[in-house]
């Protein structure tokens, strides 16, 4: 018997279910093979040890828990209506105690603020529900709000400053354009020539003393 053959038969040997011939062959192999003998000892030792181990008992509440999840012993076949499918998710979330409590506290806070600020809501009348009236009211409010916001931004100091600066620049540009159009072409030519002469004189070598103050100023820096 080889070691590989022994490994296959070892479980049955430990179980005590081997036939006599196989058992004697296996035992003779064990007597001459220290590795297999060691393996057999380990296997038998562990199996005997596990025999002494207490079973893992589930807690008593587990059974109740499972049966609770499956009411009347049957799985809950949850049939969700179209309404629940559409709104079930977030409505269910909103109905959690913490959110409901938060909403209640918010309403309470606003009502207290309104009371202390002497803001009293006007009683609603049937005439207020006329669609034309509602639309006119909304339109009126929207226009008022728009005008108010435009006026608010126009009155901001920053906006006024920017607008006045822009106006100044625009005026200056317009004045320059007007001056240029008034000057005759000969005057423009003279100006150009005199400008050229000035440029040539500045390109000539400057006096030697002129650099000293600059050097001195660099040292000061």
């Amino acid at each position, binding site marked *: 018997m080889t070691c590989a053959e022994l*490994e296959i038969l*070892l*479980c049955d040997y430990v179980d005590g279910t081997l036939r006599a011939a196989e058992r004697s062959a296996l035992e003779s192999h064990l007597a001459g093979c220290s590795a297999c003998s060691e393996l057999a000892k380990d296997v038998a030792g562990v199996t005997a040890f596990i025999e002494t181990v*207490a*079973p893992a008992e589930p*807690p008593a509440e587990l059974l109740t828990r499972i049966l609770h999840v*499956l009411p009347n012993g*049957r*799985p809950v076949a949850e049939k969700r209506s179209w309404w629940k499918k559409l709104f079930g998710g977030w409505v269910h979330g909103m109905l959690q105690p913490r959110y409901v409590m938060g909403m209640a506290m918010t309403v309470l806070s606003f009502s207290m603020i309104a009371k202390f600020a002497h803001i009293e809501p006007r009683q609603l009348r049937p005439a207020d529900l006329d669609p034309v009236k509602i639309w006119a009211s909304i339109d009126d409010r929207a226009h008022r709000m728009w005008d108010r916001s435009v006026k608010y931004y126009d009155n901001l100091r920053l906006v006024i400053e920017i607008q006045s600066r822009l106006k100044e620049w625009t005026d200056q540009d317009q004045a320059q354009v007007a001056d240029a159009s008034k000057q005759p072409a000969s005057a423009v030519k003279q100006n150009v020539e005199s400008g050229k002469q000035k440029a040539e004189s500045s390109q000539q070598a400057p006096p030697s003393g002129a650099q000293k103050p600059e050097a001195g100023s660099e040292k000061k820096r």
Partner: protein
Amino acid sequence: MATVAIPAAKWNWVPPYPQGRTANNLDADAQLVERCLAGHDSAWEDLVKLHTRRVYSICYRFTNSDAEAQDLTQDVFMRVFKNLKSFRSGEGLFVVWLTRLTRNLLIDHYRRTRMDRATESIEDQVKVLEETIAVLARTDGMLAGREASEVLQAGLQKLSPELRETVILRDLEELEYREIAQVLNVPEGTVKSRLNRGRAELARVLRRHKVRI
């Protein structure tokens, strides 16, 4: 430190399992399943009562966590209720079907929690080891009952999932080799080979922790 003496090989060793399952309770399983499928309400409850212990035990031994084992047991029964129609009593035993279902869930759970285990703090492992050593010091390495269960539990966690599940199904749940082969979907020879390796590895782990086996 006391050395561990492995007793002489128990060549005359008798299998520890007068198998817990008899022809009667196999019939009972088949009848229960039929009653469940026929719509008897009490049958579902009986089925849960009958098999909760087995499913919980497998889950607990594999995961080493009571909370996870409870959740997984609940999931197993939810899946049983959904898929019981797919069970054919002529094709195999209900216990094998249930164990296979449990094992599949455990494997899914094992893969899902791989990252959690990788980040498990070394302090937790040291704590378990210290508790085991304390138990052993109190009992001089001779363990039984609940203490042996705790030490075995720590040892099982050192095995690879393949070896662990094989040892659990054979030595703790007492399934036949043929049934384990069906559950794991491997040949019987592979089951025996894994069982030998698992037991030998477990023996080494226990010996390292000074347990007398």
